């Protein structure tokens, strides 16, 4: 039977506040265990939470960014369960009245097509600490540095249909939140963690199948693999006439498989009730409108502008607009170079290719936008050929200076002097009488192919610096 995959995602996004959501402790990643945990984070007796306003602002900015309903009165609740890295024995979260309500989110697929994904809700909550199971002589250690870090849990409708769509959603989400600067989006450090709800149903069916939930997947690649594995596992069960069990599973990246969590690890009755230590968060129109006014141009708007302003294709525009830093870089190059299409091509092909090869982010790019723009100008004014430009780019990447410096230092300037070029062309013709004879005997169609040989020879003699247009013109004249 043909099955359709139905996926909903819950993303836990760490918000980029300087201090925790309910205490003044810093949120920086990687500090020595328990050095960023205050009496509040340790749930010492008598300690009380105080809501970090910045976390509220960030949550509202997210809601505005996806055009969602903003909860004018949202309520914090206690979600009760015992775990050693949950110091209070409850997590402060939001249950019935979240700060962000329904919204939609557009994703773009590889083929350039777009889809709307429904966002059910997004709510604020605090992160738990970490249990450390190594180096404690059979005991577990608890690190509460992360406890109380603000999270925005973003829940989608079951609108995603494949691993590709899930990854596209996560990438678009990553793009949005980094544009908004409400999260660093650093998946390796756990700033974006994903729970996947996945079920299969016969193609054409409207009812949802039984779902499994895969917890805490923390990279795009693992999300893709976990979904692919889970589709296979569930379809095998269904093909054999079995039933999928509703359960929580863990993705094991080392074995590339999902396995059920022990039932002990799954709390089932959280006994939610309104947190009496915090007042409801009441937002007025002015607060929301002030934040709306601070929103930057968002990825989708930018993409559409790149298409209309620079005449870029939808997909290319999408790639360039995916990261705010990349988009800014591209626009700086385009404006300095004076040719957006060539700028787009260079940024997308050469620059991104090189960044990927070195596993670098655009923020760490060693070539400033102004240098790349200068390089493109040298192509446009015929100082160098496209081929030489790639060589110059490589030198810029290696920190050898800007384009003009490198071109001068290496003597890479294109030879456009007609006398110099003529001498080269004459030399090549003299050195290759056989080919000259062949050329002259050939008809028009064949000549076009044969001339390439002579061009190549001239370029070789000129170490690639000869102006190809002028060489072509001279060869045509000289070969007759």
């Amino acid at each position, binding site marked *: 039977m043909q099955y359709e995959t139905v996926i909903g995602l819950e993303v836990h996004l760490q918000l980029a506040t300087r201090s925790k959501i309910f205490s003044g402790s810093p949120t920086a990643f990687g500090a020595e265990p328990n050095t960023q945990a205050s009496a509040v984070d340790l749930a*010492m*007796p*008598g300690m009380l*939470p105080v809501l970090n306003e910045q976390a509220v602002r960030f949550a509202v900015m997210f809601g505005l960014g996806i055009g969602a309903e903003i909860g004018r009165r949202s309520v914090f609740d206690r979600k*009760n369960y015992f775990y050693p890295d949950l110091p209070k*024995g*409850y997590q402060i979260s939001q249950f019935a009245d979240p700060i962000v309500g329904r919204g939609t989110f557009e994703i773009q697929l590889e083929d350039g097509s777009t889809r709307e994904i429904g966002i059910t809700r997004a709510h604020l909550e605090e992160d738990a600490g970490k249990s450390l199971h190594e180096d404690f002589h059979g005991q577990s250690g*608890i690190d509460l540095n992360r406890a109380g870090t603000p999270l925005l849990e973003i829940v989608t409708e079951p609108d995603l249909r494949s691993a590709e769509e899930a990854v596209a959603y996560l990438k678009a989400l990553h793009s949005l939140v980094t544009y908004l600067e409400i999260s660093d989006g650093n998946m390796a450090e756990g700033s974006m963690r994903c729970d996947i709800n996945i079920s299969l149903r016969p193609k054409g069916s409207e009812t949802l199948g039984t779902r499994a939930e895969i917890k805490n997947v923390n990279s795009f690649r693992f999300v893709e693999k976990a979904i692919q594995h889970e589709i296979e596992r569930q379809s095998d069960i269904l093909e054999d006439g079995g039933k999928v069990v509703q359960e929580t599973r863990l993705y094991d990246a080392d074995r590339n498989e999902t396995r059920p969590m022990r039932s002990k690890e799954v709390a089932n009755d959280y*006994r939610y009730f309104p947190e009496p230590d915090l007042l409801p968060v009441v937002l007025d129109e002015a607060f929301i409108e002030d934040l709306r006014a601070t929103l930057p141009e968002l990825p989708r708007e930018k993409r559409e502008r790149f298409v209309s302003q620079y005449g870029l294709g939808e997909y290319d525009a999408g790639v360039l607009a995916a990261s705010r830093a990349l988009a800014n870089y591209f626009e700086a190059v385009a404006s300095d170079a004076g040719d957006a299409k060539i700028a787009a091509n260079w940024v997308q092909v050469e620059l991104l290719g090189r960044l990927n090869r070195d596993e670098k982010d655009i923020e760490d790019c060693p070539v400033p936008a102004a240098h790349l723009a200068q390089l493109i100008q040298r192509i446009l004014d015929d100082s160098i050929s496209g081929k030489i430009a790639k060589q110059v780019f490589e030198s810029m990447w290696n920190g050898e200076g800007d384009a003009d410096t490198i071109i001068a230092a290496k003597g890479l300037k294109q030879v456009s002097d007609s006398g110099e070029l003529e001498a080269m062309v004459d030399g090549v013709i003299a050195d290759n009488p056989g080919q000259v004879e062949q050329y002259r005997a050939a008809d028009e169609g064949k000549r076009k192919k044969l001339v390439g040989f002579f061009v190549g020879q001239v370029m070789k003699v000129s170490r690639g610096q000869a102006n190809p247009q002028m060489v072509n013109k001279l060869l045509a004249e000289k070969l007759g």
Partner: protein
Amino acid sequence: MHDQTVAQLARGLREKRFSSVELTQHLLDRIQQLDANYNSFISVTGEQALSDARRADSQLGNGEGGPLTGIPIAHKDIFCTEGVRTSCGSRMLDNFVPPYNATVVSQLAAAGTVSLGKTNMDEFAMGSSNENSYYGAAKNPWNTSLVPGGSSGGSAAAVAAGLVPAATGTDTGGSIRQPAAFCGITGLKPTYGRVSRLGIVAYASSLDQAGPMARTAEDCALLLNAMAGHDAGDSTSTVREVPDYSADLERPLEGLRIGLPKEYFGDGLDAATGQCIQAALRELESLGASLVEVALPNSALTIPTYYIIAPAEASTNLSRYDGVRYGHRCADPVDLHDLYTRTREEGFGDEVKRRILVGTYALSAGYYDAYYKKAQQARRLIRDDFLACFEDVDIIAGPTTPGPAFGIGEKSNDPVAMYLEDVYTLAVNLAGLPGMSLPAGFVNDRPVGLQLIGRHFDEARLLNVGHRFQQATDWHTRKPEIAGGAA
């Protein structure tokens, strides 16, 4: 000196009739000599007290300081005190020494008070008799075979026995007012949000409120002046300005309308106690107040509502006591589950366990709507009843408790009988109102308390009425005969 009120002691200190060190030493001596009879203190911090008293004396010598400078007080052992064990009456926190002060403790220290130590209480403030303390029952100075009330029983007993002129308490369902009534002292529970809860070990967060316990309303006003105020560290504390609670004490009572809820004078009220209350009301009438019968039609909902909401909040507030970070931890746990269960089995007493069970049940899936949600709706009705009354009257008055202090052991095996002790006080917490208990007579040599209930944030009015009443009566000046005869 130990017979004087805070106001009198403040005058004595200012007039240099005695120093804070002398006063402090005198009270420390009394505690040492007498408290074996009352068990009102869990910890006595004599050295720290004398050092604080010396500092107060030097301030007073320089003509500095305020009305509380050099005044000895005691804190209920629910207030976190930096460097001083804060047990909350529980084995669970027997070893807990906080690295911080509760805001109330800091404020009272900043006002110049000298803390003598930490007073006994029902474990985690759950109880009405002080029998639920890991440190043993505190005893009523009027008769040591009687309970002092609870949960702030140690504070009430210490003030009544003349071991300290004033003490802090907390009141979640009557825990200041009921022991004040049983011990013949004055106790005020402020409006919810008036005093910071930061650093007070939480029992039921939406009901807990700290307040002063002393001999007189005038003293309570002095203490409340230092305790009240907004605290950025407690989101539920109000930003509303703090009035000078001492300023309006003398205001005449002419024109004051006092509401008498008929539900508070019904079958459950002990007859002799009722007569004391009636006499006190006539006294107020003679001072110019008019008495008006009012109705609180949802009163019958009070006990079930309280005993769902308070345990529900308590059940999660007490989840943090898991043996992982501080407090009691069972020996040699074999695994996590064993650590949790044995730590909590050993660390908590029966009443605490009972309320955790009740609260957990009330919040459980399938019961939430029937219990917790229903209780919240009832709570709204109870509050609305009071607000409706306050359309017609300025304050409400009635008995603090159904009867005077009962014997130690008399009700300790009957939780429901114990819960009924708080029938007149619980609703005040559910409605978030200020309430006060004043000494209003005796039944068989046992003190009786008159309860006054005010509008939200109208503590000044309660203190004013209490002060005028105390100017016209002498119940608050009566002192128990102190065993051992120390003078």
